[in-house]
């Protein structure tokens, strides 16, 4: 039965294509794109099938590699949460890869084969991180995805390699810190399997090694998730990378790291242990709150669209982490829902910026004007949808994750974080309406001085493969908003024990 093998099949698909693409690239290089899309399609199909099985009532799948049961062997755990995240990231990756063909030809013409191979490795790493049930294995996948993302970010404009190098240094430190934390946990429990360890941790509660481990792991994952104040690598990396790389990494990468944080904090440790010695959830919550405000304020100060989106990511990741730190059902729903919503919104926005960069050659906000609306009507509709959703206007998706997060803060009577959510929505409105105002209202500078008539502009929309992917994701934002009751009722079944 294929159903029970799905946890292994998804990463293996990506691994296979990561190897196949360079091999087939020797034969016909321009086909790499299609192979990558094919790989992502197959993986997305498996994810969808797995999640369908989960929805229709099948149990959590624990897949033991080579039949070795833990603690000896490595296991992959396909439960509701990991299945959901895998489905989200693979779907987004599929759309971004479909979208990437022309950008690839333009921005890294000679490196297409390598690029798609590395992209497959990246997805292998992300899927492995989500699915694995073993802490050390998680580290390995973390490093695979990180190495791939350093390489992908390095392929970009002139400044990209330096940004990638900085990310490499910071990211490796993060991975090492995480590994150190795992070492501490291993000395205490003697196992690396998440489920085994979660069962053992309550017995050794109060051990100072556990607190050290937790702090190290949170710091390490926090770097990967760009939790304030560990976000320094993110703005440069996202804004200098190639459009496709940022569209691929921005919606997925930090989300997966946030997912790992959620696993570690809520599933592995559980709320009771975490707060027994130091109020670490409160600390994370406050950091997330500061990050949300900081990211939004910095986003307002940017004049480049991609850089603005990068800072906006810092802010949005704060929402997810805030949801984790609330450690109550509403916070959990909000966090998981925001993983989906933000992945959709950021993918849409980065794809739009990719469209603009391909057509206009820049993403400088100060140069945006009325002509964009005429030239790229549908791209701008997609942008508007995503922007309004980021601001949190119902019935778009972004509203609902904020709604659950707000309910979560209210449940904890945490008025401070509630006001953070509200204020940041306003700040989001500031930086998105600033652009919308330019795009829809500002008279273009290309106005003919003699006649005063705008030089004739016709629709100059991007190619269908790019337009449709952007539009479908934008439509997805609306659909997720309207249908979020179904998604939430699925998320409710994923609650970790003790919540």
């Amino acid at each position, binding site marked *: 039965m294929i159903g029970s093998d799905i946890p292994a099949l998804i990463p293996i698909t990506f691994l296979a294509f990561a190897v196949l693409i360079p091999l087939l690239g020797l034969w016909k290089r321009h086909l790499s794109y299609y192979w990558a899309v094919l790989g992502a399609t197959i993986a997305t199909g498996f994810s969808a099938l797995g999640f369908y099985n989960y929805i229709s009532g099948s149990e959590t799948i624990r897949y033991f590699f080579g039949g070795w049961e833990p603690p000896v062997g490595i296991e992959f755990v396909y439960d509701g949460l990991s299945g959901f995240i895998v489905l989200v990231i693979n779907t987004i990756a599929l759309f971004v890869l479909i979208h990437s063909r022309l950008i690839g030809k333009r921005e890294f013409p000679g490196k297409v084969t390598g690029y798609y191979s590395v992209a497959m490795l990246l997805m292998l790493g992300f899927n492995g991180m989500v699915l694995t049930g073993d802490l050390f294995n998680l580290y390995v996948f973390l490093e695979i995805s990180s*190495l791939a993302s350093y390489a992908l970010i390095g392929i970009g404009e002139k400044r990209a*390699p330096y940004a990638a*190098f900085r990310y490499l*240094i910071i990211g490796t*430190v993060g991975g090492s810190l995480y*590994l*150190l934390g795992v*070492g501490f946990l291993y*000395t205490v429990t003697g196992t*690396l399997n998440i489920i085994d360890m979660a069962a053992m941790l309550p017995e050794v509660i109060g051990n100072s090694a556990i607190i050290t481990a937790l702090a190290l792991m949170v710091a390490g994952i926090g770097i990967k998730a760009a939790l304030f104040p560990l976000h320094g690598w993110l703005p440069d990396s996202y804004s200098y990378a190639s459009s496709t790389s940022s569209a691929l990494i921005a919606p997925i990468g930090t989300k997966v790291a946030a997912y790992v944080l959620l696993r570690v904090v809520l599933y592995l440790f559980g709320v009771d242990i975490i707060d027994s010695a130091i109020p670490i959830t409160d600390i994370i919550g406050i950091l997330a709150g500061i990050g949300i405000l900081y990211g939004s304020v910095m986003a307002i100060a940017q004049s480049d669209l991609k850089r603005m989106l990068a800072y906006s990511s810092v802010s949005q990741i704060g929402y997810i982490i805030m949801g984790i730190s609330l450690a109550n059902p509403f916070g959990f729903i909000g966090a998981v829902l925001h993983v989906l919503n933000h992945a959709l919104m950021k993918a849409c926005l980065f794809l739009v910026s990719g469209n603009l960069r391909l057509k206009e050659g820049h993403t400088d906000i100060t140069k945006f004007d009325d002509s964009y609306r005429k030239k790229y009507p549908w791209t701008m509709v997609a942008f508007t949808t995503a922007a309004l959703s980021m601001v949190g206007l119902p019935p778009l998706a972004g509203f609902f994750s904020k709604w659950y997060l707000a309910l979560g803060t209210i449940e904890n009577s945490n008025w401070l974080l509630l006001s953070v959510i509200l204020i940041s929505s306003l700040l989001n409105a500031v930086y998105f309406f600033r652009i919308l105002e330019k795009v829809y209202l500002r008279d273009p500078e290309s106005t003919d001085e003699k006649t005063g008539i705008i030089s004739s502009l016709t629709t100059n929309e991007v190619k269908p493969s790019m337009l449709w992917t952007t539009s479908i994701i934008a439509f997805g934002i609306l659909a997720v908003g309207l249908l979020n009751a179904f998604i939430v009722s699925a998320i409710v079944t994923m609650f970790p024990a003790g919540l």
Partner: protein
Amino acid sequence: MVDFVLGHYAYWFTIILLAIGLYGMLIKDNLVKKTIGLSIFQTGVILFFVSIASKWGATVPVKSDEFPVTEVANYMNPLPHTLMLTAIVVGVATLGVAFALLITIYNRYETLNEQELLEKIQ
């Protein structure tokens, strides 16, 4: 207290190595030096894992007639060792990517000094 410090001296050396590595990454301007710092940092973590596996009076986890071991507890824990094999390989892979980026940076900016680099970027 003295016992604690002496008994865990491998931990302390690990921490010192991590500190040296961090120092290299944060203070040094040269990008190669930063990479060397990174390597030292990772080695510190590996050392930590190896030291948690070792025990006084235990022997290597190899079954051999030359080292007769009656109790399993007298073997060292082999699991961290195997993990570190992976970690070392990961570390080298990281360094490989780092050097690839370094060479690209040098080809574009003709320098590996961070200060000069930042000036040239502006």
